[in-house]
């Protein structure tokens, strides 16, 4: 009885030590692996200079790449963050739509004289971003626009694709 007690105790002890070793190596491993869940690593949403206002023609949409300092993991560079479709209306106001298709994230181009289109699943959108055909679950995502000293600035943002409700990605 005494020896089997001792045996049982040793088994438990071995389990404790084994678990201790695993924890020592495992906790930092999990911390490193799950850092993206614990903290936002890199955020590129910001106001970016797009184009001079005078270069926009009323009623003619223009695709503009948004270039800014991008932090990608450990590195930092001036690069293209995303692209936007800009449209100057008759009243002089300017609208910006994200070029990322809300359906599955492909890049939206101009389809006809009056529509945008996404090549991946043949979606079509009006210049206001309203889906006309294809599987897009919502309108194209609008981006905030600011005009300062004749320059058009666009607030770049990414939204979750494939869902009806628009929410940040």
């Amino acid at each position: 009885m005494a020896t089997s007690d001792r045996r049982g105790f040793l088994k438990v002890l071995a389990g404790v030590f084994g678990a201790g070793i695993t924890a020592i190596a495992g906790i930092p491993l999990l911390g490193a692996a799950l850092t993206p869940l614990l903290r936002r690593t890199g955020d590129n949403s910001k106001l970016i200079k797009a184009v001079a206002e005078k270069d926009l023609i009323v009623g003619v949409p223009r695709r503009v790449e948004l270039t800014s300092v991008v932090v990608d993991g450990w590195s930092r560079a001036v690069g293209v963050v995303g692209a936007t479709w800009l449209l100057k209306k008759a009243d002089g106001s300017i609208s910006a739509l994200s070029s990322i298709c809300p359906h599955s994230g492909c890049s939206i181009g101009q389809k006809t004289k009056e529509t945008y289109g996404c090549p991946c699943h043949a979606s079509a959108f009006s210049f206001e971003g309203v889906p006309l055909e294809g599987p897009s679950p919502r309108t194209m995502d609008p981006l905030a626009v600011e005009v300062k000293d004749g320059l058009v600035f666009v607030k770049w943002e990414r939204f979750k694709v494939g869902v009806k409700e628009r929410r940040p990605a």
Partner: protein
Amino acid sequence: MLKPIIRWLDVRTSHRTHFSALLESPLPGGAHWARTFGALVIILFAVEALTGVGLSLWYAPTTTDAWASVHFIQHQLTFGWMLRGLHHVTGNVLIVVAILHVLQALLWGAWKAPRELSWIVGLLGIQALILISHTGYLLPWDLRSYWATQVLVGIAGNQPIVGELAVRVIQGGAEVGNATLTHLYSMHILLTPGLFAGAIAVHLWTKRKHGELAPPGMTAEAAAEKAQTYFPHQLVRDLAAGFVVMLGIVLYVWRTNGVELGAPADPSIEYVARPEWYFLPIFHLRHWFTGSAEFIATTVIPGMAVSFLAALPFLYERLQPRVKQAQKILIGLSLAGMAVALFLGVSTAMADAANVEEVKINEKADVWAKQAQQLAMIGVPVSGPLTLYQNDPHLWGQKVFDRECVACHAPGDTKPYEGAVCLDGYASRTWIKKFLRAPDAPHFFGNTKIDEMDAFDGDDEKLAAIVEFLYQQTAKPDVDLKLAAEGAVLYEKEGCLECHSLDGVGTGIAPDLKGWASEPWLAAFIRDPGHERFYGKLNEMDAFDAEKLSKAELSVVIGWLRSQSDEKAGF
């Protein structure tokens, strides 16, 4: 719940029989703390594998990204510093433990027949371990890594016959670079740990076949009487030893905040490169065997030492019938060899620590390392950590100045001063004052073609007003407007305007001082100092067009020039 699954598995694998054979195998002489070394090697290796997986999730083996990604691991990841610290320290402890395991096997006579294979494979395993460790040493791509790689490549290249070929294969390119790092990384995580795991497998296989030895000096009867099963008696000791060692390592890493990342690899920075501690004996030997004899230090002597150890069982077989004390003599010789290696290593380490010059060089590198770590917090430029200074406009400006300007515009404390106008403290009130009082001094126009400017000999009050007026031109924020206005009047009255136009009004003999040392003035000046608006025919300075100085560089060097303080003009 689990039991049916285990039973199902057992029918197909009979793993229970095998495991119980392992766990219930009897240990002659019983459980023993001295037996824990072997298990410790496996435990620590497992820790290395786990922490290594964590590191590999974030590490990038290229010359532009390696340092940056290790910095990211160290400073941005949750417990990243601990992960890396554990991996580094455990790796070193693993080698120590493996050497102790060899020592123990040596003293216990575990190398004798029929365990020769286990012994030899163990020795090979240590070499695999050193390869793992050394390839890992190079991966952070800091100064230490970089110079250690250069040394390693040099040594490998000097081996007879295969040396150069091996270097070309490992280096992968004309220089130590991207291909080298990626090759080393692959070797570190795949090839060398694979070799080591293979060595462990053969080692365990032969151990299983021949069983464990009794402690030395114990009779067979006593050993049989005291025998215990591996499980749980020895297992609990193995795991306890593993836990205590790991606890010690965690506390050490905690107290030291992990392993420091040095300054980024840079071929132009002086650094005293030393190999890891286990290579120090060879490092010492290299002082004695140089040139084409170098491979004697790097290959022949270490090779002979390992071969001697590997040959122990066979030497013993030959000697034992004739020499009574064969075992003691062989063990004694082995220990003596190890003692010599230890002595060589320790004496090198002590000599390094005592060498003031060397310590100073590395302290300088450490200062830059700290600065680089700070700069990298907002991300490392994609061009790599060597352009980290671009994260700080002031530092960048100084770099540009050091590269393009300092050859003529020497530092103020240069003796004798033979350069063009000294720009230490440029456009500060002190600098302007000194300049006006002695424009022909060596620090100003003394070494140039210009000798037409008169020193200002008015009283200090007038001088202060003119200084303030000129200072106002720089468009710095802290101008005394009233004093500057007085200066504006004096500028004409005291004769400055006779040569120095102001906004195009005047003779234009000397540079127009409207907006002097302001951003636009400096930009125009640096691009074209020979322009009529500036020195005209008297100009000796090179024009810095966009090819010589990019827009960004021009902007930061102007920023640097405009940040000069009064104290700097202390020459």
